């Protein structure tokens, strides 16, 4: 169990390794937005998802990023990021700025449910449509 000394556990020490990584820059924001379905997986990722039989793309950590968290993006990827950001801001009741501002950063770091906000399922009309499903037989 986590270490504590106070009777009411108010001084419970949470090992930093157990801390969720705080979202501080656009790179992490992009991971957040794709994790919760605001950024659709690209065609390539979709094929990967189907082949590996999962309908939730584990966050591809290989997006190249510059030293201060900016991500090299093509024009279309930038647009996708901004529109996803606006969608998240609207759903969260934030000012829809399309900019990764403090209010958005704060909202992304709040405790939340892990179920995606948007269907991450590439084909929502699949018979066994699901939010998070591993289908063992790959032909589905």
């Amino acid at each position, binding site marked *: 169990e986590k270490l504590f000394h106070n009777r009411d556990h108010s001084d419970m020490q949470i090992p930093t390794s157990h801390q969720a990584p705080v979202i501080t820059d656009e790179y992490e924001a992009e991971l957040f937005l794709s994790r*919760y379905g605001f950024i659709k997986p690209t065609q390539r990722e979709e094929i990967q998802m189907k082949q590996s039989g999962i309908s*939730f793309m584990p966050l591809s950590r290989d997006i190249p990023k510059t030293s201060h968290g900016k991500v090299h993006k093509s024009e279309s990827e930038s647009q996708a990021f901004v529109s996803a950001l606006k969608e998240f801001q609207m759903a969260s009741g934030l000012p829809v700025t399309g900019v990764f501002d403090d209010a958005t950063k704060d909202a992304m770091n709040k*405790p939340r449910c892990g179920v995606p906000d948007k269907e991450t399922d590439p084909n929502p009309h699949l018979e066994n449509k699901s939010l998070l499903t591993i289908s063992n037989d790959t032909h589905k």
Partner: protein
Amino acid sequence: NSSLGNPTGNRNSSKSGYMAFSKDVLRWRLIGEGYSSQLTVDEQRYIFRLAFRMWSEVSPLEFVEDTWSPLEDVDIKLGFGTGRHLGCNQKFDGTGQEFAHAWFLGDIHFDDDEHFTGPSSHTGISLLKVAVHEIGHVLGLPHIYRPGSIMQPSYLPHESSFEMDWMDRKAIQHLYGGCKGRFSTVFDWIRKEKTPYGDVKIRFNTYFMRDGWYWLYENRNNRTRYGDPVALQIGWHGIPSDGVDAYVHVWSRRREAVYFFKGLQFWRYDSENDRVFRHDSEGRRYPRLISEGFPGIPSPIDSAFYDRRDSHIYFFRRAQVYAFSVETNSLASGFPKHIRDVFPPVESGDHPDGSIDAAYFSYSHNALFLLKGTRFWRVVGSRERWRRPFLPRNGLMPHKEVDQQWFDICDVHPTSLKL
């Protein structure tokens, strides 16, 4: 891998396109390898039992904790874990941010790195609130971005006592339908309250009774009281705990009495002290035989009501109705009659015929209703006849469904009654 049930075995897609379970009694279990290290196992199970009960209070679904069947027979499996957990391919991120997720197949995982707390605590993350949210997902609800909705994706600090609001109720009923069922009796219970200035205020509460359970119906909120149904003996001391056939409130200038009827007997209820009378002012003991207290009335009866317009109690039994004068303490002349003759259908063919479950005069609607099964017929009022004289006296308007006028009167599984 976490044991994944058959994704389509016990589900069908509802009209809204979201998948829903195709059966209405669902089994759940807190899996042994998934206990939290922060609350006792009993606390965890109690909180989950309450979370499931909250969904069954607003939907036709019932939930039972199943700790004995093979795991594949359990519909919803709950467990705590940290990081990579319980064979799940979505690892948890540690304290903060993601606190739980639900698998469409019926598994719910809670991140044990979060500081989950019980319903009475005001710190940490309310396990009850998170569990209600995640169960909503398993039942087929997506995230709903409406302030006040329990299905909002972000966790809002624990309000004093959160409940499911109207829209959340309609969302789940859109998937599973409304709550239907016959009632043993329905009535408005009148009570007198003295104000601090010594005036007497008359108030009423509406109750729906079904076998050994009852709901208080909050007319102004169009729903039952949070946490109902409860067992009869909790709120009505001394009446039969397995339910009653009828309730009558005699209320005239000269007399006032509340009666419950069951089988061959009846009880007089002491509204002042909220319990049945053991005996009345003449020393007669209760319960008494209906044939003694109301000569000429057969028993058992199906239902009854007191009509303040003519100071008669109308007893319903099978296809007949008996008018009983409380002034003369005897059957009114010409009775019994066919129900259809005293309460004729406004629309021919649309009539309950007999075996009325409840005859309910509602002060909210200022109208008399006859309930049978899942339907009700409103009795044409005198004011209405004044406007539309062609309507027959005591005519029955075409039927409607009870769950279209009184909402969210839902059963819960007997195992979660005493929470």
